[in-house]
């Protein structure tokens, strides 16, 4: 059952009700926003983990990652062994004027060298300055939050499981040795 | 004579004085209003910058260069509304002198009917316009 003007009255009621509710405006520069975990602010680089495998640069859809490197030969550790070579990172830069924040580079990195940082205040007055070099990318690592806690029912991460198994074994061996010693005494 | 005039006004302050006082105040307010606008624009003239550039003197048409002339043909149907208004406004003003007298002693129902007759004729006109579709936007 509706009478003429019911819709008009309803509209008025909606706006009036909204007026009494809390606003959703964020007073941003005064109040920092509370960002959800895994916010895609900027890409940070943990240089120490990077092996210059170039996977990220190759997978990047808009080719905004620039990597330069050179090979370094390590002298052989043992007399008869071969000398080893390894890649040394010279330059790692991301052009954030091109980057579309798809996160593929982070996904493909096999060595956990790239991370999402929630940092978003890196505007520049010149578009060319949006190409950020490795120092800057490394600095953003400090803003990367700890990974969110696992689901309570989740399986233990593999690394931890293996490490714990090893530690358990070691502890068991130590206990056995201690027991033997005690027997001797 | 001026003396006579003022004497007449003084004799009936409620009527004579009130009327001219009211409109003298209106006149004064007109002066005040014009002064306000003048002062505002003088202040504006002192404060504003003047940077010549022919670009900003172009007519604004959503950011692109203006197309064609500054004048364009528009719907003539607006004119009918204006015309209807003139006729009905002439009608409506008669309501005001009528409104002030019709309920006082000595007028009563007869005057009411006279006005209804008057309005009735125009209501017929409005109905005619409606039927003819003048009020429809085709």
């Amino acid at each position, binding site marked *: 059952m509706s009478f003429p003007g019911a819709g008009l009255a309803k509209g008025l009621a*909606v*706006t*009036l009700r*909204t*007026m009494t509710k809390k*606003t*959703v*405006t964020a007073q941003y520069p005064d109040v920092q926003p509370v960002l959800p975990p895994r916010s895609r602010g900027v890409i940070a680089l943990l240089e120490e983990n990077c092996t210059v495998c170039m996977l990220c640069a190759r997978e990047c859809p808009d080719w905004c990652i620039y990597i330069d490197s050179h090979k370094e030969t390590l002298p052989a550790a043992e007399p008869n062994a071969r000398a080893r070579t390894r890649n040394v990172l010279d330059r790692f830069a991301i052009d954030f004027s091109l980057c579309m924040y798809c996160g593929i580079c982070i996904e493909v990195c096999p060595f956990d060298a790239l991370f999402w940082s929630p940092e978003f205040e890196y505007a520049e007055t010149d578009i060319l300055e949006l190409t950020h070099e490795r120092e800057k990318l490394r600095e953003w690592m400090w803003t990367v939050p700890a990974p969110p806690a696992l689901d309570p029912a989740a399986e233990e991460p593999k690394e931890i499981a293996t490490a714990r198994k090893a530690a358990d074994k070691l502890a068991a061996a130590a206990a056995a040795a201690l027991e033997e010693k005690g027997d001797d005494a | 004579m001026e003396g006579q005039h003022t004497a007449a006004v003084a004799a009936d302050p409620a009527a004579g*004085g009130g*009327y*001219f*006082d*009211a*409109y*003298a*105040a209106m006149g*004064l*307010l007109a002066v*005040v*209003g*014009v002064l*306000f606008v003048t002062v*505002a*624009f003088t*202040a504006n003239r002192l404060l*504003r910058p003047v940077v010549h550039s022919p670009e900003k*003197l172009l*007519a*604004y*048409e*959503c950011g692109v260069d*203006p197309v*064609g002339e*500054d*004048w*364009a043909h*528009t719907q003539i149907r*607006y004119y009918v*509304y*204006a015309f*209807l*208004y003139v006729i009905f*406004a002439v009608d*409506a*003003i008669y*309501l*005001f002198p*009528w*409104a*002030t007298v*019709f*309920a*006082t002693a000595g007028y009563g129902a007869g005057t009411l009917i006279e006005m209804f007759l008057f*309005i009735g004729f125009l*209501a017929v006109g*409005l109905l005619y*316009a*409606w039927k003819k579709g003048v*009020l429809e*936007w085709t």
Partner: protein
Amino acid sequence: MNLLDTVLRCLATLVVFLTFPLVIGQTEHKVMAHMQGRLGPMYAGGFHGWAQLVADGVKFAQKEDIVPAGADRRIFQLAPAVSLLPYLFVLLAIPVGPNGFVGQAVDAGLFFVLAVMGVGVIGKLMAGWASANKFSLLGGLRTAAQLMSYELPMVLAAASVAMAAGTLSLPGIVDSWQWYWLPWQIIGAFVFFTAGLAELQRPPFDMPVADSEIIFGAYTEYTGLRFALFLLSEYVGILVVSALTAVLFLGGWHGPMSDQLGWLWMILKTFALAFVVIWLRVTYPRLREDQLMRFAWAVLIPLALVQLALTGIIKVAIS
């Protein structure tokens, strides 16, 4: 005639003319924002952006005065004043409180107010034509057609009140107001307020400034102080229409302790109506041009005629 007294009254009217619209404008900023889940201006002046419109005014006063190359200079420059000043005269005649608390009582007050408000349309036509912009012209014509169409129901509804009161003087009308006028004149009140809203080109009747069609109508080419005057005229218009509706239909200063607090009642009623104006703006979408015209001629005018008949019959019956 006490010259000093008259000068003071004129200046007081000017002060009201310049400050109350700012209050209404700021209320609009805030009410509209909160109705849309926002906060509105927050910085100017410190506390909840209360000085936002003052800041706007200062900004407008410093802006460059641009007259388009093809424009008719003098008419272009004159138009904002022509559109604004009629409202100043109307304000002078609006009674605020009992016992002569009015800028200047005019004997034919109601008629005077309606006549003077009708002059504003010339300013808008001048602005539209002189801008040398076809969108402005179209906006000016739309404004004029709308103002003329809605002036008529407004005049008829006002005539109904004049019939009920038997006088055209605005203080006289408020004096003879009784509570039962409220139901008696309810149709007239609706017609008057709606038509007033349309006269101000406030949403949902803002077709003449429909930005999606004709940029900003007659005001497209205006900048700086002249634009500010047009804006001011819109907000003074809200004040005037709200105050007139309060005077004619809501009993003006009538209320508890009206002898001392009459002016407060009047201001409260005016601002309540101004709030409704803002509320309607936030709630409803714009009417199409054909709906706009049809609403005036096919709904408001017949309603106003019905109200006239009702007023006439009841008035003769009770007198």
